[in-house]
């Protein structure tokens, strides 16, 4: 927590010194000055993007974690075909840039399926799809790191495959991969900015739109940077808290 406070203070200092020193005529903070009516409206407009950035990222991460786990499991099978499916999926999906995937899902897929798709779901699906390949690799590594003896013990008390995974293997694997999952969540929050290109009203899109009307890119994009910074530091703190809590659970 103190680390976050320190970073925020540092950011504020940088903003304050640059705006108050000689180059002050380069800055026009009035666009986002909360004490003026229009500045407040602009600020509200910018921060309003937070809702979709968070909603989109959370939706996408939930889908991609679930999909990642389902794709990781065949990768651990003894069966060659199942492992082949896992490898193919991971290699193919991992090779497509996220931006390309977003464009493909939003503009391409409706043409193929005949169904139109909302900007939100196109973005969520594209982000989730892209991330699922990475989640799958994280889960596979996590599950593979669990000792073989745990499976044997589970079998020896007659647990079936699903129960073995649910009660024995995954709870241990997830503890180990939590830092990596946190990483992916942060990554997702940042990559959600790409969905602005298809018109999603999230943080980046809002900033772009305001820049077009106000012609103050420096101030507006600085606010944008700050928005992501605050959001992601909060998420990081949350992930660390969760890690500590889960550690505490085992070491009680």
């Amino acid at each position: 927590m103190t680390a976050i406070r320190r970073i925020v203070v540092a950011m504020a200092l940088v903003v304050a010194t640059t705006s108050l020193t000689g180059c002050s005529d380069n800055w026009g903070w009035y666009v986002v000055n909360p004490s003026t009516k229009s500045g407040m409206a602009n600020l509200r407009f910018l921060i309003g993007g937070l809702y979709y950035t968070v909603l989109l990222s959370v939706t996408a991460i939930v889908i991609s974690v679930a999909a990642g786990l389902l794709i990781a499991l065949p990768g651990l099978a003894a069966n060659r075909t199942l492992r082949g499916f896992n490898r193919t999926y991971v290699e193919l999906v991992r090779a497509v840039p996220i931006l390309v995937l977003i464009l493909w899902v939003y503009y391409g897929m409706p043409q193929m399926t005949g169904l139109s798709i909302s900007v939100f779901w196109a973005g969520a699906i594209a982000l989730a799809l892209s991330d699922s390949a990475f989640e799958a690799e994280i889960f596979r590594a996590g599950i593979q790191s669990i000792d073989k003896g745990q499976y044997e013990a589970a079998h020896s008390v007659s647990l079936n495959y699903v129960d073995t995974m649910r009660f024995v293997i995954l709870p241990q694997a997830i503890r180990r991969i939590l830092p990596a999952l946190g990483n992916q969540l942060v990554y997702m929050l940042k990559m959600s900015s790409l969905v602005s290109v298809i018109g999603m009203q999230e943080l980046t899109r809002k900033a772009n739109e305001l820049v077009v009307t106000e012609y103050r890119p420096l101030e507006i994009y600085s606010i944008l940077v700050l928005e992501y910074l605050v959001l992601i530091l909060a998420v990081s703190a949350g992930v660390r808290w969760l890690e500590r809590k889960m550690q505490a659970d085992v070491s009680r």
Partner: protein
Amino acid sequence: MSDDAAPMIELLTVSKSFGDFQVLKDITLTVGPGERVVVCGPSGSGKSTLIRCINGLERHESGTIRVDGDVLAGDRASLERVRPKVGMVFQQFNLFPHLTVLDNLTLGPRRTRGLSQAEARDRAMAYLERVQIPEQAGKYPRHLSGGQQQRVAIARALCMEPKIMLFDEPTSALDPEMINEVLEVMVQLAGSGMTMICVTHEMGFARRVADMMVFMDFGEIVETAPPARFFDAPETRRCQDFLQKILQH
């Protein structure tokens, strides 16, 4: 044990290889209900593989394994029939580290025996009493000593109320001062009429408890005898050499 009762475990010309290396060669062994068998032999002789085949942790390649009348084939159905009858205790304990002692014991009975939380809990506490560590129920495995962990592992297997208990070198990973507390629990269990196969080098325990000694070397059963004869007058050269080595100290 009575000779006319149907055997609890029956192995008929069981063989298995890991690649080019044949770990089990034509193993034939019959264990009656309530009989206690101790398997010994040099490391790599196939002892562990033998007992791991009996509950299907390893799959045998040829021959027949019959457990309490059920043939253990490679299919899931036969595994599901056999495993509930067989409890297993491992060298490395293999407790579930993220679960408390109590949850380690109740997981199997709740999920596979249809016991309610309360029933499973009562049963678990009863077995923890039996292995003399009921006060550790709320702790996590890593806060217990090795001996305590292995006793929890024994209780976990017993909670499934198996007909057979397999022990795979249960004291080999323990500090010397903890071996006895585990052996004591095993002796007590032997007294209760449980069918047991123990892979162990604890020859004192074997002498006290075993009905039959099995000596394995290079994947074969070299000698089978009651403990008195096994220890005092081993027949084969290989068995004599082995006993000499481990009984020296």
